[in-house]
């Protein structure tokens, strides 16, 4: 097991390297002189300033040298400075990270409870009213734009009913609507997949023999079926992290919440290149690590899986 974990971590290194190359290349792929990327978009730079800045940022060095210097800084935790407020990018990212993780955790919890619950219920009562209802709901869920769902929730629960605040961060009340909006659309995908997995598990021999032994239905479902459904479900939930990150970017904008997603959108809209580069690199690395953890968790969860 530990060998597998080490091997999986090692296979992540070339991908991390590739991600860093790609993020670094953003600077040289952007049309125009890279020096303009490190100044405010409105600034008019004369030739002398451009030459000075090129020297200051070592842009006259060969590209591989520039990359190694940039990578060295990244490894020391220096992602550069955002021109907005002239603050270190890493400091800005860490400041916003907590709010995003909170939103993602709450969203994932709602998605899992709803998605797994609806999926199992639908599989147990196949072709019933409940089954049709949950699958129609799931179909609408996957077709609905997250940002629009969030706005409709603001319209109904904030502006009309006044139950929850429409924007901001801080209390649990601020978290409810964004988390539900984020979780609902992800629960739709989960419900469809869980239904399919559960339906297959319910046809297995061990379920038939459990029923044949005269076990009560709830014991068959909870003790025999559910345990076997959990492993693929954990995998699917893990794979939903990417979708949750994308969702967080949108939901944070809809609800004007603090967070890494909103910071990323801000950096792109305001053309704060260093900040955009930093948030992209940070999120991609975080996502990669989550994927490795999900991979490793298979082995921990399922004793039938051996990684030799």
């Amino acid at each position, binding site marked *: 097991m530990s060998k597998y974990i080490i091997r999986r971590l090692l296979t992540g290194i*070339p*991908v*991390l390297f*590739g*991600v860093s190359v*790609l*993020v670094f290349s*953003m600077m040289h*792929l*952007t049309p125009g002189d890279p020096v303009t990327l490190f100044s405010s978009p409105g600034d008019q730079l004369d030739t002398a300033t451009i030459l000075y800045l090129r020297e200051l940022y070592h842009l006259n060095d060969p590209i591989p040298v520039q990359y190694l210097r940039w990578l060295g800084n990244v490894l020391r935790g220096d992602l550069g400075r955002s021109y907005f407020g002239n603050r270190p990018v890493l400091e800005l990212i860490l400041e916003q990270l907590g709010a995003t993780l909170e939103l993602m955790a709450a969203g994932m919890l709602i998605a899992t409870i709803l998605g797994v619950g609806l999926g199992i219920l639908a599989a147990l009562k196949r072709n019933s009213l409940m089954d049709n209802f949950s*699958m129609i709901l799931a*179909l*609408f869920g*996957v*077709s*609905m*734009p*997250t*940002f*629009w769902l969030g*706005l*409709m929730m*603001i*319209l109904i629960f904030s*502006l009309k009913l006044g139950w929850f605040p429409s924007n901001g961060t801080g209390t649990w009340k601020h978290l409810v609507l964004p988390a539900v909006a984020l979780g609902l659309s992800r629960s739709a995908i989960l419900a*469809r*997949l869980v*239904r*399919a997995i559960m*339906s297959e598990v319910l046809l297995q021999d061990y379920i038939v023999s459990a029923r044949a032994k005269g076990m009560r239905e709830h014991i068959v479902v909870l003790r025999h079926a559910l345990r076997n459904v959990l492993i693929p479900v954990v995998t699917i939930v893990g794979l939903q*992290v*990417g*979708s949750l*990150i*994308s969702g967080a*970017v*949108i939901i944070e*904008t809809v609800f004007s919440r603090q967070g890494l997603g909103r910071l*990323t*959108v801000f*950096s*792109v*809209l305001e*053309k704060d*290149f260093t900040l*955009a580069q930093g948030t*992209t690199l940070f*999120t*991609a*690395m975080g*996502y*990669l690590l989550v*994927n490795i953890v999900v991979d490793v968790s298979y082995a921990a969860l399922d004793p039938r899986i051996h990684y030799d």
Partner: protein
Amino acid sequence: MTEKREKMTTETSQDTLDFAAYGMRKETQSQTRMVFRQLLRNKGAIAGAIILMILIAIAILAPHIRPHDPVEIGIDRPLLPPNSTYLMGTDNFGRDVLSRVLSGTHISLEIGIITNCVALAFGLPLGLLSGYFGKKLDSLVVGMMDIMLAFPGILLAMAIVVVIGKGLFQTMLAIGISWVPAYTRLVRGTVISVKENVYVEAARTIGCSTSRILRRHVLPNIMAPLIVLLTLDIGWAILTGAALSFLGLGAQRPTPEWGMMVNEGREFMRIAWWITLFPGLAIMVTVLSMNLLGDGLRDALDPKMKID
């Protein structure tokens, strides 16, 4: 003489294979009929196809059927609620929401189609070549795709927008590029299994060129999963395109793009909900139609992939 005989033998073998291919085409025709028949039995798929046909008709006929000019500003009629003259009301600039929704249909369908064409243009050849040739080329392509997949969902598209700039066309290109890995992986996986078939081996033995094998024997056999992915992904592309426009990175004013229209209506939601509601509904209906049709196609073309 011997050379001539060898040439004749090769030609005869190629003819035999072509005859076999003709037989396969005949079989494919009957398979197509079977798929079509199965599709006709799927109520959801029929509903999806009908809605899609209506949407295509609207996209084509919008300039003739829209009641007002979608970009004409009416300073005397801002924020009018739905009424007999303006069925979906007017926005803050006094523009007719219905005309804008109708005009936005072709933009959303274009986003869905063009992004998938971009993804297919890169993903299909990359997947075909890496799956067929394997070895170093395969490792290189898989490595590249792993790097791209390390960027969660919308983030890669946003990073590409940083490089190529904001705008509708740029958004399509960005989403298309960010979806290359999905197509590459699918095509590669299918090619790996298809290339082991006897008919591919036979074609190789009689000296068919690689391009001929790929075109005549491999490509037709990977079409089914590709069509399913394409149909389902058009819906996803429409959602992602709308999300990017909502964030301000896609279509720019005064283009009547649905995601941007939802964003424009945000600040007036308390007093003019209709500006946000109708474009969002339009997105949902369009994506729903693609999902219904995609699900139906998946069940008809590849029952193994059936979710429910």
